[in-house]
């Protein structure tokens, strides 16, 4: 046993070397946040809760085409289509349920949607004490969408799905015959 080791033992050298790292971090900027008082800034591509979107004129975008239901790998979506009560030539979702207890937040439904009616948002803090509380109806999804409109636009822009709709180009796009009271056909 050497003198160096002896001194190291009585002076708690190992502890000091450990504390050195601690003290160094005391002067650095904190990484953690004081959640829920502080919140993270999330990237635009963040895949949070899925919402339903509307056109500028408040008309809901969803046409009840069932494509999201078809692609959903977790079978979380169920759509019941029907004739729109006001416009007999229009299809709409009479019932739309998204079961967030099953959803795996993969974002496939947003890609499948032909009218950009779905988008993912930065919402993540939706919890419930019951399972039923996490099964969202169309109305819930729409009101959540109204709340997070900027998030959903950001997500679609990030995923390059905004361009297709707003470029004004006709090719390769779904073309729906014009629907009364809806200016932008989709």
């Amino acid at each position, binding site marked *: 046993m050497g003198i160096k080791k002896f001194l190291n033992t009585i002076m708690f050298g190992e502890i000091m070397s450990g504390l050195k790292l601690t003290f160094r971090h005391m002067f650095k900027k904190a990484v953690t946040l004081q959640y829920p008082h502080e919140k993270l800034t999330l990237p635009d591509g963040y895949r949070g809760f899925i919402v339903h979107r509307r056109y500028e004129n408040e008309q809901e975008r969803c*046409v*009840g*085409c*069932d*494509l999201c239901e*078809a692609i959903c790998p977790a079978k979380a979506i169920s759509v*019941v*289509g*029907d*004739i729109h009560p006001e416009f*007999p*030539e*229009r*299809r*709409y979702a009479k019932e739309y349920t998204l079961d967030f207890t099953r959803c795996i937040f993969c974002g496939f439904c947003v890609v499948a949607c*032909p*009218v950009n009616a779905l988008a993912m948002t930065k919402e993540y803090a939706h919890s419930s004490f019951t399972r039923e509380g996490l099964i969202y109806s169309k109305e819930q999804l729409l009101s959540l969408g109204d709340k997070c409109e900027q998030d959903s636009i950001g997500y679609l822009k990030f995923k390059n799905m905004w361009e297709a709709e707003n470029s004004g180009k*006709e*090719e*390769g*796009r*779904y*073309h*729906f*015959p*014009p629907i009364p009271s809806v200016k932008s056909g989709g």
Partner: protein
Amino acid sequence: MVKVFVNGVEVEVDATSTILKAAEKAGVAIPTFCYHPRMDPAGSCRICAVELEDSKRVVMSCVTPVAEGMRILTESAKVADARKTNLELLLLHHPLDCPVCDCGGECPLQNMSFAYGASDSRFESHRNDEVEDLKSDVLVFNSNRCILCGKCVRICDEVQDVHAIGFINRGFDTVIGPPLGKKLDCEFCGDCLEVCPTGAITDKFVRYQYRPWQLEKTKTTCTYCASGCQMNVETEKEAIIRVTSSEGEGPNEGSICAIGRFGFSHVQSTERLDKPYARSFSRLVPTEWDSVIPEIAERIRKIAGTGPDRIATLVSPRITLEDAYLIQGFTRRVLRSNFIDSGARYGFMNAAFPIARATGTLRPMVDHQDLLKAKVILVIGADPTAESNITGLFLKRAIRKEKARMYYVGSESVSITARAKEHIRVLPGGEGLFAWVLSEEIAGEESSRHPEFLAKKEDLFKSFNVDPQAYTKLVQDLRESPTGVIITGRVFHRIQSASDAMESLLRMTNALGWVEKEGCGILPLPEVGNDLGVLMMGATHEWLPGLLDSQDPENKKKWEATWGEPLSYGKGGGLKEILEGIKSGAIKGLISFGENPLTHFSPNSEVREILSKLDLLVSVDLFQTSLSDQAHFLLPAASSYERSGHVVSVEGFVQALNPAMTYWGESLTDGEIVSRLAECMGVPFATRSTGEVSKEIFTLMPDLSPSTRNGDHFMGPTGNLILPTIVNQPPHKADRKTVMKRMASRAENWKSAITPIQPEIISGEGDFVFALNKSLFHSGKMTLLDPSLMKMESSAFVRINRQTAKKLKIKKNENVLIENSYGSCILPVELTSGVTENELQVPYHFDSPDLMGLFPGEINYSGTCSTVTMLRTRVTLKKIE
């Protein structure tokens, strides 16, 4: 025969066939939009392009005939290029609205675009953005999606022969729809919907409610009429969404009528009985099977214990072979009764009984294929389109494509009479006399004819307005033509002398030598889906299963040996004897399986009072009916979409029913109900599954083994072949040799002239004859609860001759008062030139107004088989001011 090479594979085909047919034979699929195997090729879609290796040319395979040594390439680069360009051109107008299109997911255009990657067009898109035609209640026409293949127009012309839709405008503006921008008014068969390769024609009843990939398909047989249509019932989550057909499959070859295609909603309506009901203190209260079965069993035991023939059963002809077999077994073995009858007693029995007596079988002598080969077709008192839609289609095809000469005998005009070579109008009541005169003319020698023959013939011409020239033409044609078929239908079977008239026709076919000739004979049209099967299974007092005389001790012994117990039923009887028995108190119980005798009798008759004398009245039905007001027990039955089993078609095919959904509520099949009852009564009548019962039937009567037509038909555009489902099927038609033998012994009775048939005496008084007919859009009373069919025909109306209406100053849709001494009713008018001047025609289906109220209370049971036929009555007609 010529040899051609399809992608290097050598095939030998008929010299007249097209390249497409040759490719089909070589097992190569060529995509098509406008090609349809049942119609003439049009060559309008240009997608079936193939390359000819030698000439390096691209030709359309559906219209190009093959030539010797032709080398055909179906998948070359040139072909792919041609198809891709063609798709680009088709998609110029076609909107990309697949997500909201009902066809999306089963669309050949979508599949082709996917296969050839043609969604990016080199041409500038030109969208028409026309508004959809939503005028019709049944179909939606979307001209934007239409690729103008013309399939819908052609199937309406060539197959249905209805000509309801056509091309409107020319060039780029061409659209498809009903003429003059009117609302679609047709037979609503929906064949155009079925063949449309895009979403240009869609179903309005389920518009936007489904996506094709979510639907589960069940192949089953339609039981509305006896055509035996094979259909796909498509369900989502135990609910029927739509009914489709597979092209070329089954005896119907892919066509279904309006009732079969659209009439399924009532079976899933809230009106369906979902629980058994028992009467307690004059009210029907819901109860459980476990309590209701022992209760009924106890009451049956009490009644049946007093002796044989104390309880009667009535059977609906819509039930399966298996259920009919179980019910007749239950009646004869457990109830020890021979009082059993079916809905065939209201008419079809008049045809079935003489035919079975003469030929020993109920299998028809001819089928639809023979119609196509027949040179002369005689239709008496039938509306094939309404009664057995597919028979109607084949009849139309025989006239149109095979140039058969059709003679229509009857008072009214139906959809096919316009195609008849001669429409021999017989005033109402003269049909029986006509059959007798015709038969006597043909069968009898000039010297040995009945002494009254000439007088009767004169009577026919004078009193019944028969055109002598047309009659002579018919006689000559029948004598001279090598092959011929006689079709008889509802009106003919329901006249009072129907069984004698049928006997006359049989005598005539025998005299014409049609019995020996393959492809000649009589084709009686059953009224309801399984009329033939129910009779074959012995659900009638005359016959044990297998059409064996129920009173013959030999036959009794045969079935005693099979069932392993002595049969101690009495003489029994049909509906007439049952009602008489109940009246006299000899019959104390009645179990009705889906049959409601009240609707077939006048409210003036005492049938309701007779039924109230019963100690036990059990009604097994899908819905509450007028019978359930009197029933002590009301039991829920499973519908034909829910049960499995077999039914016999008009052509004699024994086809399977497959359950598309589970039993509604707590309902059970009729067979299960009687099995449970028997089990509860402690009778060894083992509860078996339907499959086991079918097996027993098919082993005991091997000629009834399942059979169908076109089980392995080429399925069309995508070229997928389905494997034949039935191997070694027995012949569906009657065996000529045994029929000849039986007929020879029966013909002994026909050597000398048979007694003339008296013209029908129609009850009531007045100038007009009021006749009940079958509607194209309804089947019995059950379909009145169907919202889809009710949109096509929602209420009763009376069809009046235009000239008569003019005389009486009656206009369309005005109400008229129809009256006689028995009752009266008010009906709106529909004008037609199809009925004779003194005839009024009303569809019999509707409950209000009560049409049976115009009929006399006393019941005339007619013919050798005591049928109950309320067909015509005399009335006066008044305009309501």
